[in-house]
């Protein structure tokens, strides 16, 4: 009965009914951790109060349940459906990475804003700050971003309008090189959005290829980017079975130099 006075003081009732001060709450937490007797007493008080609350229960409007449920689960579902849409068939494509999409959208927006800013030359401080905030928000790899409905909608719109699938080309050599592209099966557009390919000597360029019906089709040339991020529109590709990158002379070749192939992805 070490805590007899404590229990008799009514502090547990105050705690359970919600009238305990912050100081009292702290004290109760302490005692609860060390006294089984206090814990049992509190539980009895709580059960009594819960029964009382149930006695005075009222049924809220039925539609509220589904409204709350939608609010909690809709954002998650939308995210799930969207990503399922882009999930690989039997692992043919790399699994869609949300952060990489966000990064590429951010890049796209930043590029767009940058261009717009350049065109307009003079912007108000305010809109610059807004651009900056938007860019920072989008480029942060924060999951909260995707749950934010507005951003979700713009991401979702972009992706569903574009209908692109992400393809990651990986190294055919020992070096851990890779490149990420978006390929849209409907519009056949190809966008190169990032690579860690090293810079090439003067007079050389990377060239992308799609293998269509067993034949290599030129998808365009590009240079390495020091930042790794890029947004390069490549030539459209109808239904490639494979994407590959070779090193060719400046301006590209008519057919790929097979022994210079550095990246590849089978669809």
């Amino acid at each position, binding site marked *: 009965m070490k805590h007899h006075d404590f229990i008799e003081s009514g502090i547990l009732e105050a705690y359970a009914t919600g*009238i305990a001060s912050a100081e009292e709450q702290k004290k109760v937490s302490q005692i609860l951790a060390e006294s089984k007797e206090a814990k049992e007493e509190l539980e009895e008080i709580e059960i009594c109060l819960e*029964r009382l609350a149930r006695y005075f229960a009222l049924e809220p409007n039925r539609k509220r349940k589904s409204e709350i449920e939608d609010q909690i689960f809709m954002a998650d579902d939308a995210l799930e459906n969207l990503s399922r849409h882009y999930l690989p068939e039997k692992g043919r494509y790399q699994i869609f990475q949300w952060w990489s999409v966000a990064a590429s959208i951010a890049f796209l927006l930043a590029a767009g804003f940058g261009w717009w800013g350049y065109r307009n030359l003079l912007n108000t401080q305010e809109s610059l700050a807004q651009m900056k905030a938007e860019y920072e928000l989008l480029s942060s790899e924060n999951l909260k971003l995707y749950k934010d409905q507005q951003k979700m909608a713009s991401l979702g719109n972009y992706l569903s309008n574009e209908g692109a699938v992400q393809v990651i080309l990986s190294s055919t050599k020992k070096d851990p090189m890779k490149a990420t592209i978006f390929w849209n099966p409907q519009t056949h557009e190809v966008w190169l959005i990032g690579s860690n390919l090293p810079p090439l000597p003067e007079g050389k360029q990377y060239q992308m290829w799609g293998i269509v019906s067993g034949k290599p089709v030129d998808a365009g040339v590009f240079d390495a980017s020091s930042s790794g991020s890029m947004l390069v529109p490549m030539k459209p590709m109808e239904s490639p079975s494979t994407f590959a990158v070779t090193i060719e002379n400046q301006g590209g070749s008519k057919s790929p130099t097979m022994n210079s192939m550095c990246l590849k992805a089978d669809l």
Partner: protein
Amino acid sequence: MARRIQISEESLVALVASGSQEGFRILYDNFSAALYGVIERIVPDQGQAEDVLQDAFLKIWKNFAAYSPEKGRLFTWMMNICRNLAIDHVRSRQHKLSRNIQSLESFVGTEKGSVRMEHLDFIGIETALKKLKPEQLYLIQLAYFQGYTQEEISEEAGIPLGTVKTRIRSALQTLRDELRN
């Protein structure tokens, strides 16, 4: 009438913590009416009270990791979230809490305001509530259903601040004794 699934508090807590939609449904079905009853006593407008309930469930869901069984029962934790949101709602609209006091006594023995989900338990509570002195019931109401502070209870009920806790304890003791019989 809401279906109530019998599930141990421990399993329910684990289910909800896992983010399961079924967990949400059980949580809602088991507790929404009791919680709404509390909110409605503080926020009498039905639409507003339901908005508070909605906010409360979102908050409960979002902050579920903050619930710890060490600190008490799940219902107590949820009830506190509901009551605090309800009080914030009312205070933000500059209502005076005292305006909304409804006597619990008026509910005892009447059908008004109660949805009888656990009939047997209800008869027991009704009998027990009738054993309470009106001022005891009033104290429980102020503390538990209205969310008054100890100072406000002291002022409202006209009892010294130092005895607020012991009076409430004795009221709840009476209730517990009656319910045990």
